[in-house]
C-alpha cells in the first residue's frame, strides 16, 4: 500500500498551527532564509528541477512559469496567488489556509524573490470569512516579524503582500479572469496570447500560481530536489493533497505521493459508504470527465488520469454510490456552469443555457433519445470554442456520463420520470436523523 506523506498537512494537528509561533515551531520560515541567500535564478532552477507542477488543475510546471518572466526588462513584476478555490468538489486550499496560512506566505516571498516581484497578491474567494481572517492576520504578523515589507531579513529584498477578497464568481479562478477582477473589472477571461508572464496584471509580467503549488515550495527549498523527486511518478513528482468526499465512510484530506490510486485511498480512509458500492466519481472536480468502478486502479497522476480519458485537475475525488441518479448529478453541475458562465463568449453563454433545458427535460423523463445526440452536438459546439476552459468543463460531465451511463438516461425516458429515490442518496436516512 502506498504510504501517506504528510508534508503540507504535517503540523495541522497542532492547535496553534495557523499562528506564526506555531509555524516557526514546526520549522517555518527557515526556507525563506535559505532562498534569499541564493541567486533568484538558482531558486527558479531549483523549482524547475523539482518537477513541481501546478496543483490548481492544469498541471503546468511551476518552475517553467517562473522562468517565463522576462528579466532585466525594467518593468514591475507581480506574483499572484490563485486562492479562489471554487471548482465543485475541491476543498484543499481552503483548509490549508485555515490551518497554516504562513506556509503560503513563505512560498509567496520565495516566489516573488525568484521572479523579482516587489508586489504580490493573494486573491481569495469571498465566501470564506474565517479563512480571510486567518490569512489577513498571518500577513500582518509576517510584516511585524520583518518577513514582509522593506529589506526582508536584511537581504535587501522588498515585498508588499495584499490580500484581495473576491465576491462570488467561479470564473475568477481562471487566471486571466482573476487578473481582470484584481484590476477592478468584471472577471472575464482574456484572449491569449499574450500570456500573463508577458502581459498580466496591469499588463506587466505576472505569475499566477495555485495555493497548494506555492505552499509546496518552502519544503522543496528546505529538503531539496532529490527528496521531492523521490516521491511520485516519472513525470508527476512529489506529494499532493487528495480530497475525498461524498458517499464514503470517512471523507477528508489525504496527502500522498502522486500516482496513488482511488482503491488505495479508499482502503486507507475506510471505503465507500457502508452497504453501498461505488458508481461514479470525479478525479479532479466536476470539470474532469467522470470515472466509474472500472477506474479504481488508475494512477492518480497527470499522465495516468489523462491516459484513462480524464484529467487529474484539482484531485477532488467526489464519490457517488449506486443511490445517485447520474442525470440529476449532471444536471446540477450543468446548472452551475450556466450560472457561472461570465457571458463573454457566445458558445458558452448560450450553450450552457440550452444544455440545462435539455437535461431538465431528460431528468423528468420527457424528451426522446434524439435529445442525447443533441446534448453531444451542443457539447461539440461549445468545447474549445470559447476564450477559457469553463465551457470545456461544462461539457465534460455530460459527454463522460453519456459514455458510461447512456442506458440510465434512456431509463428516465421509458419510466417517464426519474427512477431514483433522492432520499436514499442522502446521509439522513442511514443516520436516522432528518
Amino acid at each position, binding site marked *: 500500500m502506498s504510504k501517506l506523506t504528510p508534508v503540507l498537512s504535517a503540523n*495541522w494537528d497542532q492547535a496553534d498551527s495557523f499562528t506564526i509561533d506555531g509555524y516557526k515551531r514546526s520549522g517555518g520560515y527557515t526556507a525563506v532564509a535559505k532562498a534569499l541567500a541564493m541567486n533568484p535564478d538558482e531558486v527558479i532552477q531549483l523549482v524547475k528541477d523539482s518537477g513541481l507542477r501546478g496543483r490548481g488543475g492544469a498541471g503546468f510546471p511551476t518552475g517553467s512559469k517562473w522562468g517565463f518572466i522576462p528579466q532585466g526588462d525594467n518593468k514591475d513584476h507581480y506574483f499572484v496567488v490563485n486562492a479562489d478555490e471554487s471548482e465543485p468538489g475541491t476543498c484543499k486550499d481552503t483548509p490549508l489556509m485555515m490551518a497554516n496560512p504562513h506556509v503560503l506566505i513563505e512560498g509567496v516571498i520565495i516566489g516573488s524573490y525568484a521572479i523579482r516581484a516587489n508586489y504580490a497578491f493573494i486573491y481569495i474567494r469571498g465566501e470564506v470569512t474565517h479563512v480571510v481572517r486567518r490569512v489577513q492576520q498571518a500577513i500582518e504578523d509576517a510584516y511585524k516579524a520583518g518577513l514582509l515589507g522593506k529589506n526582508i531579513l536584511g537581504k535587501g529584498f522588498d515585498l508588499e503582500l495584499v490580500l484581495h477578497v473576491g465576491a462570488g464568481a467561479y470564473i475568477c479562478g481562471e487566471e486571466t479572469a482573476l487578473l481582470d477582477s484584481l484590476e477592478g473589472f468584471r472577471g472575464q477571461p482574456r484572449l491569449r496570447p499574450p500570456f500573463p508572464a508577458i502581459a498580466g496584471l496591469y499588463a506587466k509580467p505576472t505569475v499566477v500560481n495555485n495555493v497548494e503549488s506555492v505552499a509546496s515550495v518552502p519544503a522543496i527549498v528546505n529538503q531539496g530536489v532529490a527528496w521531492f523527486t523521490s516521491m511520485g511518478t516519472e513525470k508527476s513528482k512529489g506529494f499532493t493533497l487528495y480530497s475525498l468526499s461524498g458517499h464514503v465512510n470517512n471523507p477528508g484530506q489525504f496527502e500522498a505521493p502522486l500516482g496513488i490510486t482511488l482503491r488505495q485511498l479508499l482502503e486507507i480512509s475506510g471505503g465507500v459508504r457502508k452497504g453501498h458500492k461505488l458508481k461514479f466519481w470525479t478525479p479532479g472536480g466536476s470539470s474532469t470527465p467522470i470515472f466509474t468502478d472500472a477506474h479504481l486502479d488508475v494512477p492518480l497522476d497527470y499522465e495516468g488520469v489523462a491516459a484513462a480519458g480524464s484529467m487529474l485537475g484539482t484531485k477532488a475525488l467526489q464519490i457517488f454510490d449506486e443511490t445517485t441518479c447520474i442525470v440529476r448529478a449532471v444536471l446540477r453541475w450543468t446548472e452551475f456552469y450556466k450560472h457561472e458562465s461570465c457571458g463573454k463568449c457566445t458558445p458558452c453563454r448560450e450553450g450552457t443555457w440550452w444544455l440545462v433545458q435539455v437535461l431538465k427535460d431528460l431528468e423528468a423523463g420527457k424528451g426522446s433519445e434524439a435529445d442525447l445526440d443533441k446534448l453531444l452536438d451542443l457539447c461539440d459546439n461549445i468545447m474549445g470554442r470559447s476564450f477559457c476552459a469553463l465551457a470545456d468543463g461544462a461539457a465534460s460531465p455530460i459527454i463522460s456520463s453519456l459514455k458510461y451511463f447512456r442506458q440510465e438516461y434512456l431509463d428516465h425516458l421509458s419510466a417517464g420520470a426519474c427512477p431514483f429515490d433522492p432520499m436514499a442518496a442522502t446521509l439522513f436516512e442511514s443516520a436516522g436523523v432528518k
Partner: protein
Amino acid sequence: MAFTTEQISIMDSIIARYPRKRSAIMPLLHYVQSIDGYVTNEGIELIGQKLELATAEVTAVSTFYTQYKSKPVGEYHVGICTNTLCAVMGGDLIFDAVKEHLGIENDGVTSDGKVSVEHIECNAACDYAPVVMVNWEFYDNQTVQSVKDLVDGARAGNPPAPTRGPKTLRSWKQNSAVLAGISDGLANEGVQAGEPTLLGLKKAKGGA
C-alpha cells in the same frame, strides 16, 4: 445613508493598498455592504467619485459578483449548498425544508429582517457535506433539523457558533467589513481544522 468622515478615510486606506486605485473597487463594495448592508446607490456614487469612475462602471462590476447584494439581506444570511455533492447528500432537502420553515423563497428575507436564504454553489468544504454558510462562516455536516434550529436561534438573536469559525457568529455587516480587509481581531478564535481535514494526517501517524 451618508458616509462619515471616518468611513471615508477608511475607504482611502483601502485604496492605498493597491498600485492602481481601480483595484480597490471590490474591497470598497464589501465595505459599503458593511455600512449599508447592501450596495446602495449612495455607495456606488461615492466609490465612483473616489476611483474616478462613472457610476455605470461601478454598477457593472457590482452586478457581476453574486456576493454584492442590490437589496437588503438578513442580519444572518444563510447560504445552503445545492451543488451536486451537497445536494445529493441532503442539501436539497435542507434547502426546501428551511424555505418552508421560514415561509420565504430563494433570496427572500424574513419579515423581521433577521434571516435571508440563498442557495449557493460549492463552498470548498465537500468533506463536510452537507454544508451551510451563514454570513460566509462554515456550518459543517448539517441536517434539516440542525439548520431549522440554526435559523430559529438566529431569529431569536442567539445563533449557534460556526463549526470552524469564531466563538460567536457575527452579523452580515460585521463580516462584510472583514471581507473588506478590516480586521476584527478574531482570527485566533475557533479550531485550526476539523476532523476530516486531519484524517489523512491521523492515518499517516497510524491512528484510527
